[in-house]
């Protein structure tokens, strides 16, 4: 069983004027395999900082992040979909070769399969400079699955996609996460995205936020064992929507 444990995490930054900005303090969370956790909150609440800390791009000032699977997480078993997608591809490589560059072994077949699974319509031999934001976001989602990740972190992974593409990508994304038993933590602004893909929602209030206990009331199971047309689901969805909207305001 893969578990991601965050214990007493503190993230803080030094502002230019020398003041310290505490993003979160004494935050403890536990995520299990196959879970998709949506992080939801207003702009500037520290969602990206939290995500970057989880993938070790930022160092926490206190606390620790543990990956438990009877052993430490393997190297290269974390993947990341950044927010500013345009800057995350090298312009001197095609989209396919950008994905290929991440792996030691030949990934040709795997990229092709993922491309087909996600039903992406454009040719992956295209240069990233010739791609729109939405096209690159689709490629970034495929890239996130190339290493069969144990942990997948996404920062607004569907924000640049049109309604139809977003729906298709979300449903395949969810399927892959469940199949591979990945722990997926994604920040999402769009309530519809959030409700249609996440198992749990973690609402981040204003800074500094602290332990999960403070926000646990917002961690609501919304999707498991329910279908979109299911009345129970619809009721839960409506009540969650109201709760989140209230929190957001």
């Amino acid at each position, binding site marked *: 069983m893969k578990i991601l444990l965050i214990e007493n995490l503190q993230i803080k930054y030094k502002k230019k004027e020398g003041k310290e900005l505490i993003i979160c303090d004494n935050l403890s969370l536990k995520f299990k395999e196959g879970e998709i956790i949506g992080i939801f909150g207003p702009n500037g609440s520290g969602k990206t900082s939290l995500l970057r800390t989880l993938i070790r791009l930022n160092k926490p000032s206190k606390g620790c992040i543990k990956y438990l699977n009877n052993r430490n997480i393997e190297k290269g078993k*974390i993947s990341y979909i950044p927010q500013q997608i345009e800057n995350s591809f090298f312009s001197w490589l095609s989209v396919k070769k950008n994905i290929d560059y991440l792996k030691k072994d030949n990934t040709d077949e795997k990229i092709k399969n993922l491309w087909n699974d996600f039903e992406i319509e454009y040719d992956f031999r295209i240069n990233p400079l010739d791609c729109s934001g939405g096209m690159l976001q689709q490629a970034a989602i495929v890239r996130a699955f190339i290493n069969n990740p144990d942990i997948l972190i996404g920062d607004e992974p569907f924000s640049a996609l049109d309604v139809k593409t977003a729906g298709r990508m979300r449903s395949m994304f969810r399927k892959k996460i469940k199949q591979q038993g990945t722990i997926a933590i994604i920040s999402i602004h769009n309530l519809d995205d959030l409700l249609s893909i996440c198992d749990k929602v973690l609402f981040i209030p204003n800074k500094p936020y602290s332990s999960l206990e403070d926000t646990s009331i917002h961690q609501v199971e919304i999707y498991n064992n329910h279908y979109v047309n299911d009345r129970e689901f619809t009721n839960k969805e409506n009540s969650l929507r109201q709760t989140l909207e209230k929190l957001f305001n």
Partner: protein
Amino acid sequence: MMINRKNIIWLNGLILVLILWYLSSSFDWIDNTLLASPMETLDVIKKSFDSSTPVSGRIFLHASYTIKISLIGWGISLLIGTILGLLFGFVKYLMRSFEITLEFFRAIPPILAFPLMLVSFNYEDSAYVWTIVFGCLPIMILTVSKGVEYISNQSIEILKVYSVKPTKIIMAKAIEMLPSIFLGARVTFSFALIISVVTEMVLTPKNGLALGALARDAEINFQTPVFYAVLLLLGFLGFFINLLLKRIERLFGVKQLNS
């Protein structure tokens, strides 16, 4: 054979200048001590290939010296400038420590350093070379170090998240740096050529062959066609080297950052 008009549109400006040049010299719109005719100028260039022409009149021999000096000075600037530029770019502390000093030296006209170089290098060719280095090095360092900022940090971060081999990360960074290195190379080559010609105009090199010196003497002795031949040659030289560097740049598939 059909010629696409779009491919030869660049000829318009060139043809217009040639026509104006021809008309101005033929109809004496400008005094012929100030403006040689295109035919006279071409004749000087043609004579350069003729072995019966005295060495001093063979313009390509002058050009070869100027090109040699420019290339050596430029090459040194390119090598040292790229290494230091990368170092300054990646180590922010070094950049903060030296940026003002580099900007200060960049602002000094390199020709002012020439007398110092002449004395330091005993009037040898090295004096010309190091004057070029004095002018080009700060530009190269600043261009390359600023170019480090253009490296796509997010792409590099992705490589780190996926635990890609350090050698692959270094290679990616190096390729990301290429546009600024090429930009620096192109800017400094033109500058190297200018410094070389100006210093040669100030003092003729020991062997007596240099484009700058030839242009100066031609001007003093009213050999206007020779002067214009030098001018043409320098223009073509700068243009073709720039074109060559651009081609090499494209060969590497480098995206243009500043053009």
